[in-house]
């Protein structure tokens, strides 16, 4: 069931129907906001905005929840490691060998983690509401070569398939008695060897076939200017959102400079 790994899930809400360039602009503005102020509340606010956008778009809640559940351990790791090892000037709460826990270190960890959350949610919003065709056209209209856009889009489309392949191979090897619940990092790594080999062979084969299929559809014909079946058009809603984004961006930069 490779489809359960797809990030994009089509819904008929107004957020989904926004022009891909507008969605890209939303992503851009959210990233700028995140980095304009080195402060945790700002990054958390951006995270909330991205989350709100996902909810307004009616992206499947199960997937949002699964994404958050996946990213939380990473955030904890970032916060923990930075706090322990970033050090920093000033008085230490705890000092033990190389470990010096300082308020500054903690603050840095929190900032890093909250920014990561903001970026994660922003990109998750982008990927789950923009279909790959739109993404390519969006890149194209910003002047990127078609091949680049297609490469990114194909990578996004095939990541789930690769994940599915990994899953199937893992099941196949477990069914032969391969025990993956081993203790110890190296024993585990060793146990994953058959799976990785089969996945790599599968991925290479897949890549070759995909290349053939693209060529058989006349991709990359010499001297041909590619045309577009569904050209992008800005609708009223797009202009509106775009204008609001410009105002927010200008306002934020002004506020920062003042």
């Amino acid at each position, binding site marked *: 069931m490779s*489809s359960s790994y797809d990030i994009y899930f089509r819904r008929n809400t107004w957020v989904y129907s926004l022009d891909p360039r507008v969605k890209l602009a939303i992503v851009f503005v959210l990233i700028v906001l995140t980095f304009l102020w080195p402060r945790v509340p700002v990054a958390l606010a951006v995270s909330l905005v991205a989350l709100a956008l996902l909810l307004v778009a009616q992206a499947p809640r*199960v997937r949002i929840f699964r994404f958050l559940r996946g990213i939380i351990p990473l955030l904890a790791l970032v916060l923990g490691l930075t706090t322990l090892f970033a050090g920093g000037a000033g008085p230490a709460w705890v000092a033990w060998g190389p470990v010096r826990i300082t308020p500054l270190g903690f603050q840095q960890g929190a900032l890093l983690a909250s920014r990561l959350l903001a970026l994660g949610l922003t990109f998750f919003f982008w990927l789950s509401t923009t279909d790959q065709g739109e993404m390519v056209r969006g890149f194209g209209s910003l002047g990127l070569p078609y091949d680049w856009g297609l490469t990114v889009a194909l990578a996004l489309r095939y990541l789930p398939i690769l994940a599915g392949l990994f899953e199937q191979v893992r099941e196949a090897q477990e069914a032969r*008695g391969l025990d993956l619940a081993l203790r110890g990092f190296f024993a585990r790594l060793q146990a994953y060897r058959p799976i990785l080999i089969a996945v790599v062979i599968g991925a290479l084969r897949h890549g070759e076939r995909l290349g053939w299929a693209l060529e*058989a559809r006349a991709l990359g*014909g010499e001297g041909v200017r590619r045309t577009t079946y569904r050209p992008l058009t800005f609708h009223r809603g797009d202009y509106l959102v775009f204008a609001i984004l410009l105002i927010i961006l200008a306002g934020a930069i002004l506020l920062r400079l003042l």
Partner: protein
Amino acid sequence: MPPAVQVRDLYYAYPAPLPAAAPTEVLDNVSLDIEAGEFVALLGRVGAGKSTLCLALNGLAPHATGGIFRGQVFVGGLDTRKHPVAQIAQVTGLVFQDPETQLTQMRVEDEIAFGPENLGLPRQEIVERVNWALHAVGLDDYRDRNPSRLSGGEKQRVAIAATLAMRPQVLVLDEPTANLDPGGKAAVFSVLLRLARQRSIAILLATQDVERVQRYAQRALVLHDRRIVLDGSPEEVFAHERELKAWGIGLPQMTELSHELSERLGKPFRFSRLSGAVRGVRRALVEGDVLVQPNAVAETLRGVETLHATSLRTGSVDTPQVMIEQLGFTYPDGTAALRGVDLSIQAGELVVLAGPNGSGKTTLAKHLNGLLKPSVGRVLVAGQDTAALRVPQLARSVGYLFQNPDHQIFAPTVREEIAFGLHLQGLPPDEVAERVDSAMAAHDLATCADLPPATLSLGQRRQVTLAAVLAARPKILVLDEPTGGLDWRSRYELMARVAAFSQEGGTVVMITHDVRLIAEHAGRVIVMHTGRVLFDGTPAALFGQRKVLTEARLTVPPVVRLAQRLAPFGVPSSIRTVAELADVL
């Protein structure tokens, strides 16, 4: 007008896999013309060079594959060696077996527009072509669907539409229906027939599906030992029964029956389709040339029943090998795949799980070795609750053969591949060596013991994975579509191993769409539909239940249908194979 396809003295060899090795010769002295509007089937064993010939017709061989290419291939008047693939693509459309590698977009209409966009056509023209192509494959209402969420048959029709939108004169398809359920297969074949007839497209279809070749194709080619050895109408080609069997290629059942009857009764029977067979056999019965022999019937049937009875007796009847109680399973995304399934399977039974794609067959099978755990209810395997056991623990009693052998294969040699599971069980080295040797002998793999399994043919790769599973001596063998894409000989050899395991008292649970396989091997069929058990009984009973068959999109093998039509003459409707019917007449 010149033929759409002209192949002249084609020789092709793949580049050597290793620097020291010789190039792999695949095609030699192949010449062939295909006219516009001809529907040509390409038959041959797995590895006979069918795929290579397909690739040669749009220039991917040699442009993308390299290798040695001699002779000439013209499609629509273009010499494939002198033009790039992207240009030949406007003349020859190519559809592959695996839809995943050829569907690149997230909307059906984008997928179909992709080729025309690459040709730089004006937008209005693309819109017209998208509409036309969708209509031509009967998917008018699918334009905004996501291809990755369609059924296998629908995906292949999208892939066909996507090549049609480039308005090719030639359509080449490499085993497009190998992984489809009967409904999907029928849909693809009838689309192809319509395209050849109404749009004058030349079609070359590589396939193992001899029944449908007989029904749909105008012409059949047989590729064997690098050459085209037979070329003619399906009737003419299938008349070469002995040669075809010697080359490992199967025959349609009605043709097989006509040969069988002619030989046994010393009177020529000439039919290739069901209607002809009904007429021919009826006439012979009426004229008294042939008599229905009830004794032979009884004997054959008793034979079958005794076989099942013995297989039942070998296990202890009171404690079933597999007990499934009120099993329900829901995937994390909320799809309820199984609902209220109650089953018990005795040791020594050979059970087939059938039903359309998405009906829950694989989900059910994965419960038998613990890859999935019940959401509701419970599953007992050899008396143990699977919920309490991990997959590697269950692997000792349950062997599982996956649909795609490449998911299992990783070792550098066949020997190591088979030994892998045995090492995991912690068996002593000499016992491992002994079991590996006997497995390689039994599966006819001794000659390739030290070859990398990944380089073997599909039939051999399936044998390697089956050998690896059986060498671990499981009590239960689960097979997921073991014969998909296999030629007649490979299929026969694989099923011989499965039957041997069953006769030694092993329990077999096999998922298949292949109704001939059901008729020839199953002792019991469980038909799944929307996550429930729709039917549970013998194949003979199943073939009599029209409603179940329609609902589960299953067909009846031609010979069974013939027996049903001959029922008024005393032919029992419980006949399942060509041999049984021939015994009766």
